[in-house]
């Protein structure tokens, strides 16, 4: 196979890892919205954990992205 084509295919495959992170971030927001919807008074105490959970889960997608970028430009 042409090495440049293989590089692009590899980068595309590496980006698949972001699916899991997308599902995870969606889960976090959906449960956060459900929580605030049921008990609006809890908003200030759960909001912080929402953002932390978002940042930690998002990092997984970014690891996949860094691998993809390294394949493309490295």
């Amino acid at each position, binding site marked *: 196979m042409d090495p440049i084509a293989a590089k692009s295919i590899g980068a595309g495959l590496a980006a698949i890892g972001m699916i899991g992170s997308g599902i995870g971030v969606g889960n976090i927001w959906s449960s956060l919205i459900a929580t605030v919807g049921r008990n609006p008074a809890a908003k200030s105490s759960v909001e912080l954990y929402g*953002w932390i959970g978002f940042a930690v889960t998002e*990092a997984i997608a970014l690891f996949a992205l*860094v691998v993809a970028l390294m394949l493309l430009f490295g």
Partner: protein
Amino acid sequence: MESPIEQFRIESILPLHLGKYDVSFTNSGLMMVAAVVLATLFLTLSMRARSVVPGRWQGAAEVCYEFVANMVRDNVGKEGMKYFPFLLTLFMFVLFGNLLGLIPYSFAYTSHIAVTFALAVVVFIGVTIIGFARHGTHYLRMFFPEGAPLLTAVILVPIELISYLSRPFSLAVRLFANMTVGHILLKVMGGFVVMLGVAGIVPLAFLGGITVLEFFIAVLQAYVFTILSCIYLHDAIHMH
């Protein structure tokens, strides 16, 4: 057309060699100096009046101070206020780096893993030293919680050890990747605007929205970096 990662190239402004090491003053260093000077000026000049009823500038400086102070108080506790100056410095440095990087044709030093990893390693080593200084060898309990059956140590200790040692990497890569990806995205969208000619108004509108989102992410990532440092500090002081 230039590749979208061209914007992250480090160029030396003042060539300087120390032995065989290249310690030139670079555009990255220039932006760091600019961020430190601007943050210092912002926090000192705006607080010069020291009025009871804050004006516009003093209000902005007090928001920054209170924001980090509340974060430390809520997440670390009263003992954590000893480390508040460091955490405020960390927050302002990352925040100004992210925001200054969004000015067109400037340079975002937080989009280099060398910078973010250095910051993360300082936090990691500092937290580890604080933990050992406060608890002595008892700090090793971090890797094997009290009350767990002895047999589970085979699985628990390696997992806890890996999760502890991966902290600086995830802290560094999160900030670095967020900033890098944001800038690449802006560059690629900018390329679409130029390529499409008159129809480029559509990606231009999209670009405006993305820029607003990038400002939000710049602040959010500075916040996340500081709050995770606070949580690690809490672990070191209170041991879970």
